[in-house]
């Protein structure tokens, strides 16, 4: 491994209206290393990489490649300089084959036509060299997300990338797919490629990276070697204070069942059966986690419980009250709280003030209103207390919800749902897109609510989250509950169940 860096970024500064996204960031990459770029959401990781890839232009700072100054004004120039990027959201054309996607914009031709055979051959060759096992003739829409990611990697390699930027690559993967990705990264490394790995997940960093650069609020905090780094240490660098990573919770003391679901069937929007005969219960004072890969019926299950979607058959009851055919309003009144999966689409009215958002369920009741007359002053007063209690930053009661960061928006939702004193709290993806500090807050709060005696149903695609928060874990696969585990189950075992590996392993 050469000591002279392959790529150097010096003093990169990028300002957006009202915010400095990168503030004099230094970063360097050696040949053949995996260098992790670690930071909370909004720390400036993606901005820095978008600058390197030519999507943004820095206000200040310079690049050096092999010691020579480099100017990159567009992704085209980045590709020519040997820099490839795999975005969080894939940029593939679903109806085209893998080979066609990869050779796009640099096609081997036979006369005016695409040389299909040559393209597939080249892709197969590349794929075998790096152990990617991709079928070139498959259509992109028919392959899994993990495979699509490999197609993106191949695309970059095909264009001659020596430096590969992976932007939060594991966000969309199952645990199995993640470990396969890490194997691929290792083989790329062995072939002399240099990799920048962007993430906010600490365990991944320690597993794969040789060096770790931590960004916080647009500034480089430190670059450390993997040897000697710990999750706690990195978290402190990321957040700037001590963070409790393990959820600190006592033993659950489950009481009587509060939420009971019996033999529930729910169709999705297209009329296809998404939930197929699910039964379970959640008791007072316990957190039941539902693990599973996205799209296995989780959303439909939640919507049926909260009244947002009609169940086709079966029974849902809260306490002793049957809610199966009730409206969202009736479910709310029966004591169901709901932290929705998508906070911007459903959880908040972005153009409403925070005070108005906090009143979203209660605006019809006193003291918010009386005889249909609304009291904005009271809305504001209540919001002020709650915002303080839940440590919402970035705005007051009269700030528009859209102006807040994702973490603070989520806190507003949690504040609203919890303050209604629900007996059942459905938390769907409660920490999606949040940074370490906000995750810690939401997790702690959920455990507190459990200890208050609420029944909490947690649905999450983050296995870590389900494992660390739940008292019992149910695995959902293709609309069925296929397994139940206690929280000390291994990730491998549960990961297997998530992809349908074990049909019925009811244990614990």
């Amino acid at each position, binding site marked *: 491994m050469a000591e002279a860096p392959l790529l150097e970024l010096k003093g990169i500064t990028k300002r957006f209206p009202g915010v400095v*996204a990168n503030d004099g960031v230094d970063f360097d990459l050696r040949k053949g290393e995996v260098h992790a770029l670690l930071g909370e*959401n*909004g720390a*400036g990781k*993606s901005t820095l990489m978008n600058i390197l890839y030519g999507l943004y232009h820095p206000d200040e700072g310079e690049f050096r490649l092999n010691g020579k100054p480099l100017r990159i004004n567009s992704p085209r120039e980045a590709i020519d300089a040997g820099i490839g990027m795999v975005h969080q959201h894939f940029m593939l054309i679903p109806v085209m084959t893998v080979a066609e996607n990869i050779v796009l914009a640099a096609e081997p031709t036979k006369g005016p036509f695409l040389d299909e055979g040559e393209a597939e051959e080249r892709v197969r060759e590349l794929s075998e060299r790096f152990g990617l096992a991709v079928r070139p003739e498959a259509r992109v829409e028919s392959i899994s997300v993990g495979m699509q990611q490999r197609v993106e990697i191949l695309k970059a390699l095909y264009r001659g990338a020596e430096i590969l930027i992976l932007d939060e690559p594991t966000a969309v993967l199952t645990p199995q797919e993640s470990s396969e990705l890490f194997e691929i990264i290792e083989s790329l490394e062995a072939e002399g490629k240099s990799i920048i790995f962007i993430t906010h997940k600490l365990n991944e960093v320690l597993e794969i990276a040789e060096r770790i650069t931590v960004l916080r609020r647009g500034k480089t905090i430190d670059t450390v070697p993997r040897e000697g780094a710990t999750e706690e240490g990195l978290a402190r660098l990321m957040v700037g204070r001590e963070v409790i990573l393990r959820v600190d919770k006592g033993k659950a003391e489950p009481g009587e069942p509060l939420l009971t679901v019996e033999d529930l069937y729910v169709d999705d929007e297209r009329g296809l059966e998404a939930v197929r005969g699910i039964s379970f219960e959640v008791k007072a004072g316990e957190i039941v986690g539902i693990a599973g890969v996205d799209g296995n019926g989780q959303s439909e299950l939640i919507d049926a419980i909260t009244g947002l979607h009609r169940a086709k058959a079966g029974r849902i009851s809260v306490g002793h009250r049957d809610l199966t055919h009730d409206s969202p309003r009736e479910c709310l009144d029966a004591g169901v709280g709901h932290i929705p999966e998508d906070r911007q689409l459903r959880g908040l*009215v972005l153009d409403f003030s925070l005070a108005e958002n906090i*009143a979203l369920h209660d*605006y*019809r009741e006193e003291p918010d209103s009386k005889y249909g007359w609304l009291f904005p002053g009271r809305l504001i007063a209540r919001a002020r207390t709650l915002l303080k209690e839940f440590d919402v930053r970035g705005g007051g009661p009269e700030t528009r919800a859209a102006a807040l960061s994702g973490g603070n928006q989520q806190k507003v939702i949690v504040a609203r749902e919890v303050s209604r004193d629900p007996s059942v709290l459905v938390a769907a993806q409660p920490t999606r897109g949040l940074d370490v500090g906000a995750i810690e807050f939401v997790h702690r709060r959920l455990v507190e609510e459990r200890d208050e005696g609420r029944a909490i149903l947690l649905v999450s695609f983050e296995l870590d989250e389900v494992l660390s928060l739940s008292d019992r874990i149910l695995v959902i696969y293709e609309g069925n509950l296929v397994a139940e585990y206690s929280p000390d189950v291994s990730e491998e075992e549960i990961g297997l169940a998530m992809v349908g590996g074990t049909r019925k392993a009811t244990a614990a």
Partner: protein
Amino acid sequence: MSEGAGAGSGYEIVSRWYSGLGGFFTALAAAVLAFFVGGLVVVATGHDPFAAYKAIFSGTGLSWFFPWVQGDERFSAALDLQQTLIITAPLILTALAVAFAFRCGMFNIGGQGQYFVGLLTALYLGHVFVGMPRSLHVLICCVGAILGGAVWAGIAGFLKAAVGAHEVISTIMLNWIALWVGKYLVELGGWMQGNEPDVPRSYDVADSAKIWPIWGALQPLHAGIFIALFALVVYHFLLNRTTLGYEVRAVGFNPEAARYGGINVSKNYILAMGIAGAFAGLAGAVDILGWKFHQAINDYDVSAVGFIGIAVALLGRNKAVGILFAAVLFGALQVGTSPRQLSGTDFPPELATNLSTMIQALIILFVGAELLIIYAWNARKKVGIGRGAPPRVKVQEL
């Protein structure tokens, strides 16, 4: 912020413009720009735009508000101002019909039809009852018009809620139905035709149903302007100070979040449309009881108050105060450019009313192009026009 700082801050800028003072300035800019382009057209016809605009302004009667205007001038200004305000009152109401539906996320193109339904209802009620005290009679007619407009618009709201029919299509269709049924009613022996079978004109409202004249003699300003002002206040408080308004706004901003919050979205579509129609229906009552007193067949073709209401709401940004000023502007424009007010030396009279229509259309266009205006405003800083411009250039010129 790393992911979406560009987009997020862009959205922020736009929404701050929209809600804050910037909204006022872009609306103002749109109006100024429209008058500027209108002025170019005046130049193209070989006339002096300043003289033309001066004549239009004096035709609006707004100079009555200047204390130094005295004598004959003041007298004729008063006459013109009465006309301007007569036109302004229904414009306020039809604009509210557009604005209220808009706040619930719907585009109500049906103001014209709702206006006709309200007008005919008030006409009917104003005719059949006789010997009633005036305040009671006017009240009954207005309530009838409000209900008529509400039901008419409510049909579109119901269709949207029940089968998802788009309100733009259904309100346009309802406009045509109202127009042709309305025409039939006053001609060819229709139920509301007057005594002369050869004249396609309705009967008159009873004297007891006429809204009180308050200012002037020949065609005096009537108290309808106060009804319109009161409606503005109702609109503001209904929207911002009631749970009904809260629901309407929530549905308008984000129906999915509203549903999640426990709000019945379908109910709100029907309700908001109904309330919108109530405003437009009241506009019809104000006109028929205030100064028209009967409806002739060609009145249907001349009337565009429901459509101009769309422009007023757009320019007024669906805010009560904005709608007030926009309605006065459009009302004044209409009166000021009527051929009666302009002499041929200022502007060809045959083009005068077209100029008014043109300026209205331009305002809609420019308000619609708001984003472009914001963009130009920001670009201005880069190019160095305006505040940042170096004064040195001027010195050299001197």
